[in-house]
């Protein structure tokens, strides 16, 4: 299984770089992952989404879709795409250290 090193810690990831064990993620890893994905500054708004992703994953076992994020995270769909231009659900899941959400909506 592939691994990645964040904050000096080796963690298992899948072929696309998503964490396979979200328990291994720590907050200091987020900035480095974000940078790799082209997000140079992780703002408070990014953190709102990242924490929401982790909370949803902990509760439901899967990350939320963009629609759910837009309705319940307190960040609108428009802003989500400004924060994560390469796709909010996918990018935020990777930064938040949870598996890639699988859904068609």
């Amino acid at each position, binding site marked *: 299984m592939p691994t990645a090193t964040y904050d000096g810690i080796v963690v298992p990831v899948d072929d*696309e*770089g998503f964490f396979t064990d979200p328990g291994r993620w720590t907050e200091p890893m987020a900035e480095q992952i974000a940078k790799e994905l082209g997000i140079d500054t992780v703002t408070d708004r990014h953190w709102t989404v990242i924490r929401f992703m982790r909370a949803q994953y902990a509760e439901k076992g899967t990350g939320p*879709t*963009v*629609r*759910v994020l*837009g309705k319940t995270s307190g960040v*609108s*769909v*428009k802003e989500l*795409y400004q924060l994560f*231009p*390469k*796709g*909010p*659900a*996918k*990018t935020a899941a990777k930064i938040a250290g949870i598996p890639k959400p699988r*859904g*068609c*909506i």
Partner: protein
Amino acid sequence: MADTATIQKVSIIVSKGSLEGIYPALIMANGARAEGIEADLFFTFFGLDAVTKKHWEHIKLATVGNPGLHLPTLLGGMPGVPDLVTRYMERKMDKLDIPPIPEFIEMIADTGAGIYACKASVDLFELDKDDLVEQVQGIITVGEFYEHAAGGQIIYT
């Protein structure tokens, strides 16, 4: 992440005005944006109903001439049946977290996708900009569509 052979941009043409004609295009456009792919929607002919104020809340499933529905054509044509079957399908989609068409189009516009109406069809149905929902960014010619679509994939639905 592999950068080889990725799709960067899609232009999706919506030519049908039935529920099952419109949803696949919306799902593909929204899904493209969710993957970071640039996306434009181009509504033409009966597909225009999806972005027409008067019709976008009343899109119906085709209950006649639709073998995939497995409903006898005579039954499908009876009064009330299209509404009934459409409502049934809408309830099923709601359970799967698929938004109603107006909400879906608003959401797709918010993702930064382009939404355009076909000029020939707007003229044919004697519509103007005020008849179309606010998410429509422009009424464009086929030539302008090709300009928008340049460098990407074109998907016709």
